[in-house]
């Protein structure tokens, strides 16, 4: 009777470091095909964003009143918008905006949240209580309202938009990571380490961080999708990226809605792009969560 080794055994095979990554990736793909598909789409998106200048057939800002509202054709594969700008090119460049906003917000948000969450859990006591109140306050604010207010204060520009999206996310991340960090905090060996005179930094880095890695990564992938959606919503409301920049949410605004019947390609493709991107990030994050910590309550 052949005993099939468990899938995890793949990682035990001694090999050169690079093929360990590959082997790990393959193992992930086999066990979690959904996550792999998600990851593949994300990689594709990143590739498109990086090579935008090469693959976009037109300048995304090039207005051409002679070709307004043109249907998809050989000249313009996905048609043109109300100003005669090529939809495909704008879609391609829009991936840059989406990824910059998405990664920027997710990275800053998740990291800031992690720092706050770990700090709150580690130091405990009054610091924890005060920080928790602050987190509660920000979470009780409806997400989009906080983003709205931030944009109104900071003004309309890409960096400000990233800040505006990040701020509501930090407390949500902080709370989740705090609860993971807390479970470590309660372990007796942390007290023992303190008693033995180890510094704060060492304890945090050595013991707490590995424990919060999983929720950290999960929160980050969750944020990525949410950040892209939030940017699209804010642009749709007119508070995000502004004309004439190419951004998916912006492409869905105004003319796309008015011409939805006469020129459906204007709104269809950006909507699909957003859906696909967020879908991919979420698939990947969902599988990651399955692998690492299925019961994580992420709000």
């Amino acid at each position, binding site marked *: 009777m052949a005993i099939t080794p468990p899938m995890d055994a793949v990682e035990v095979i001694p090999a050169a470091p690079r093929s360990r990554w590959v082997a790990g990736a393959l193992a992930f793909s086999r066990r979690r095909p959904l996550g792999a598909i998600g990851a593949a789409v994300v990689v594709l998106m990143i590739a498109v964003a990086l090579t935008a200048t090469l693959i976009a057939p037109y300048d995304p800002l090039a207005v051409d009143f002679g070709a307004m509202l043109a249907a998809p054709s050989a000249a313009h594969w996905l048609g043109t918008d109300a100003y005669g700008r090529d939809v495909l090119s704008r879609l391609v460049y829009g991936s840059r905006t989406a990824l910059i906003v998405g990664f920027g917000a997710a990275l800053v948000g998740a990291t800031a949240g992690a720092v706050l969450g770990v700090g709150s859990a580690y130091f405990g006591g009054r610091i924890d209580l005060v920080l928790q109140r602050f987190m509660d*306050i920000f979470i*009780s604010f*409806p997400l989009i309202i906080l983003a709205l207010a931030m944009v109104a204060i900071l003004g309309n520009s890409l960096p400000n938009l990233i800040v505006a999206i990040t701020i509501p996310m930090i407390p949500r991340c902080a709370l989740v990571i705090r609860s993971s960090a807390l479970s470590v905090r309660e372990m007796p060996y942390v007290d023992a380490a303190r008693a033995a005179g180890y510094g704060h930094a060492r304890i945090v880095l050595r013991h707490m961080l590995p424990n919060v890695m999983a929720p950290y990564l999960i929160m980050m992938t969750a944020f990525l999708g949410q950040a892209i959606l939030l940017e699209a919503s804010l642009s749709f*409301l007119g508070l995000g990226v502004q004309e004439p920049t190419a951004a998916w949410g912006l492409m869905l605004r105004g003319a796309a809605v008015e011409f939805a019947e006469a020129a459906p390609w204007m709104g269809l493709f950006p909507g699909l792009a*957003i859906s696909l991107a967020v879908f991919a990030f979420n698939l990947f994050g969902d599988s990651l969560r399955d692998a690492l910590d299925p019961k994580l309550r992420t*709000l």
Partner: protein
Amino acid sequence: MSRYIVKRFLLMIPTLLGVAALIFLLLRVIPGDVVEAKFMTGEGQGLSSAVMAAERAKLGLDKPVWQQFAIWVWGLLHLDLGLSMWTGSPITEEIKLRFALSLQLALMATLVATVLAIPLGIVAALKQDTWVDYAVRVFSIAGLAMPSFWLGILMILAFLIVFRWLPPMVYTPFWVNPWQNLAQLIWPALAVGYRYSAVATRMTRSSMLEVLREDYIRTARAKGLWLKLILVRHALKNAMLPVVTVIGLEFAFLLGGLVVTEQVFNLNGLGLLFVQAIARRDYTLTQALVLLVAFVFIFTNFVMDVMYAWLDPRIRYR
């Protein structure tokens, strides 16, 4: 137990105060105020600064910030939300209709989400890692991925082009005309509910998975099918707790968070009011709205925490 309840109840107060202070300050940092928003639009000849100053004084905007805050909080303690700076009418009047609509929408959407999430989550958990599981996960994540305004636009277009029908434009309360009321709200409820079912589905699934891994379930499984059925019901009861809390929190989010959906489906709800109030720099109205929504959220949290603690005694001693 009662100590826990009292402690968590008392913690609500600083949070609410903090929210009040935050929105109060935020609004005053944003450039522009209600007088400018109303009268310096370019549609008229504009007003002189003396007249604008007089209007500001009338609204109490010339007083020092801390004094304005104190006056407002004092009013809150008497459960007086104040007057809207844009219209001058009591805020309770402005909110009444919109609150009813948003509340109903939030309830309906939560219902839709629950009806979708629980069966799907259970099925996905029972058939883990099969194509059924994948299908459920793809389906629920798709809902999360689609921008709600895009989905809404597609829906409205479908109505107009395919069915040549339009949902009612004006909100009628349920007790006035139930059919019209439902005909208007069922569509956004479906769109929103589908979207929010994703989180609940995931929670149901993982919660069920964890319970199913328990020893007593394993032995029951080994023993036979009918026993498994009984124990699945047992498992359900334990698994539902985190699911219920997630659903409860989702509901609290929905109350003020449906800004874009409301715009697309043209619902005069709290979300739209929010956007208008901020655009008009209507401080009192925005503050009242934020407090209302935050209160619902904090209170829901409180109820969930108590429920959790009641069912899982370990938590009480944190």
